[in-house]
């Protein structure tokens, strides 16, 4: 029973239970669609939270990695006859290598400088995707082949629900394990003070790079899944606004709270879907949520809630 009390196992079980029960509560395909989108965003956010919440390094360009993963899954099968599943893996490996190459110089930066460097990186990827028309179809986007596994074509919201749910659960499990490992402790140490961490023998550069690469690969895989699920992609998936939305999900849910990030992803993905009446005001609302959360709920939704509960109990 003691193992259940641990946030790791307990939280994972709760997440697994929610994923298992949710299909019985969702009334129609539309709700499945929203939940799948939540899951895909949550997968990115779980990775991004490792970088922002644990290592304390901001990235305003993760949609770029998401977009690269999506386009790897779209372009490689369509233009080079590579099977979709191999394309997904190749995309993730490619993005990982790219993250190593980019991460090395820019992770030396801090605060605003890191924010802008990652932002510039994301925008360069966006420009590449929208300008290389022969390969990517340009700003109009391109269609994506169905994902086939062992000759079985994956389609329909129910199949995709389980795929995305499984991916999210696996991703969360991996992230929680990482947080509980020496690497995770090193990340938290360098979050508080890089110099102090270094003095204590933490290889700051290597650990920051590791977590940057891991979060990039998470984003790439989520991008691939999203491309195959929706069957069509545009460069907007790699755009600035998407990067901002991802960071907002991390912050809204609570930096350094893996499950909080998932809650953040759920709120921010689902809210616009159900507020279509206010479609015109969607951006204004997104901006307002970002500001209000950062001003009044600095720890994020889930940690703030938890704190309040603890406070009442004691």
């Amino acid at each position, binding site marked *: 029973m003691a193992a259940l009390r641990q946030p790791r196992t307990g939280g994972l079980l709760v997440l697994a239970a929610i994923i298992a029960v949710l299909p019985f509560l969702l009334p129609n395909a539309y709700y499945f669609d929203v939940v799948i989108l939540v899951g895909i965003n949550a997968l990115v956010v779980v990775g991004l939270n490792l970088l922002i919440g644990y290592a304390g390094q901001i990235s305003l360009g993760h949609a770029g990695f998401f977009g690269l993963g999506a386009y790897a899954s779209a372009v490689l099968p369509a233009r080079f006859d590579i099977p979709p599943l191999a394309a997904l893996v190749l995309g993730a490996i490619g993005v990982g290598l790219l993250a190593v190459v980019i991460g090395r110089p820019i992770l030396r930066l801090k605060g605003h400088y890191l924010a802008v460097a990652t*932002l510039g990186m994301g925008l360069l990827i966006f420009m590449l995707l929208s300008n290389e028309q022969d390969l990517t179809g340009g700003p109009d986007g391109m269609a994506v082949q169905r994902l086939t596994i062992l000759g079985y074509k994956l389609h329909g919201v129910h199949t995709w629900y389980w795929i995305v749910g499984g991916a999210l659960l696996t991703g969360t499990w991996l992230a929680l394990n990482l947080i509980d490992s020496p690497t995770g402790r090193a990340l938290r140490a360098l979050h508080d003070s890089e110099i102090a961490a270094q003095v204590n023998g933490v290889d700051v550069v290597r650990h920051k790079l590791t977590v940057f690469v891991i979060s990039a690969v998470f984003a790439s895989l989520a991008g691939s899944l999203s491309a195959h699920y929706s069957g069509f992609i545009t460069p907007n998936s790699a755009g600035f606004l998407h990067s901002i939305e991802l960071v907002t999900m991390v912050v809204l849910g609570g930096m350094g709270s893996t499950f909080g990030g998932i809650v953040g992803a759920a709120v921010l993905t689902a809210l616009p879907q159900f507020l279509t009446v206010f479609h015109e005001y969607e951006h204004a609302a997104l901006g307002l949520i970002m500001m209000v959360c*950062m001003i009044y709920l600095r720890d994020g939704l889930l940690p703030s809630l938890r704190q309040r509960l603890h406070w009442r109990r004691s």
Partner: protein
Amino acid sequence: MSEFLQFLFSGITIGAVYAMVALGFTIIYSASDVINFAQGEFVMLGGMCTVFLAAAGVPLPIAALLAIVITAGVGAALCKLAIEQARGASVVALIIITIGASVFLRGIAQVVFDKQLHRLPAFSGEQPILIGGATLLPQSLWVLGGAGVIVIALHRFFRRTLFGKAILAAAQNRQAARLVGININLVMLSSFALSAAIGALAGILVTPITLTSYDVGTMLALKGFAAAMLGGMGNPVGAIVGGLLVGVAEAMGAGYISSDYKDAAAFLIILAVLSFLPQGLLGARIRERV
């Protein structure tokens, strides 16, 4: 040669706009350590307010003046309602707050105004001036003149007036400035209003050349930020030099390499500067303290 001159003219014109945006970044950063990612929205608001006021029948000079006042008000409101409330927040939180403000202002602008491209008539005719085989639009002179006037006025403001000196003092050391009786909240408020006004003016001057719409702010903010960073964050001279360099690099890149990747120039500069000269061309060297 005339081709080079042509690219240089357009580069310096747009560079002057980036320089004004970069100055706005610099002023707010000096006064409050905040990087205001909504700086580009001030430029957009300046242009859009003028367009819509002019369309409503207000004479252009008065419309421009009103637009500057409105934008300065928005800047002050941003400071009062968001930045001041978030005192003590982390750098990441402040980045997200100002990005949120930028998304919010853009969202409001697309409802209050519209999603169309708009233009203003050139202030003194469209007849281009021929110089060495290249042409220069009279409006470019307005932009350059406007940037020049702002630089001189700011210089005098910071050096000659008590309030300007108070802002500089607050930028040096907020605690010490407070101890000698400087009202830090007022300094922050006026720095936001001031840089909003500068942004608005830039937006008004450049709209006849580049047109404006509700979403021009993002790119302008990013390029202005590239400029500010290239020159060294918090350094006004650096902001101007950086702005002109980014503008010229962009125009040359578009002219000689590829216009598809015109916008990439600024970001390649950012990545290069950050990798090799993390403090910018004219920035101070700072060490982290434990």
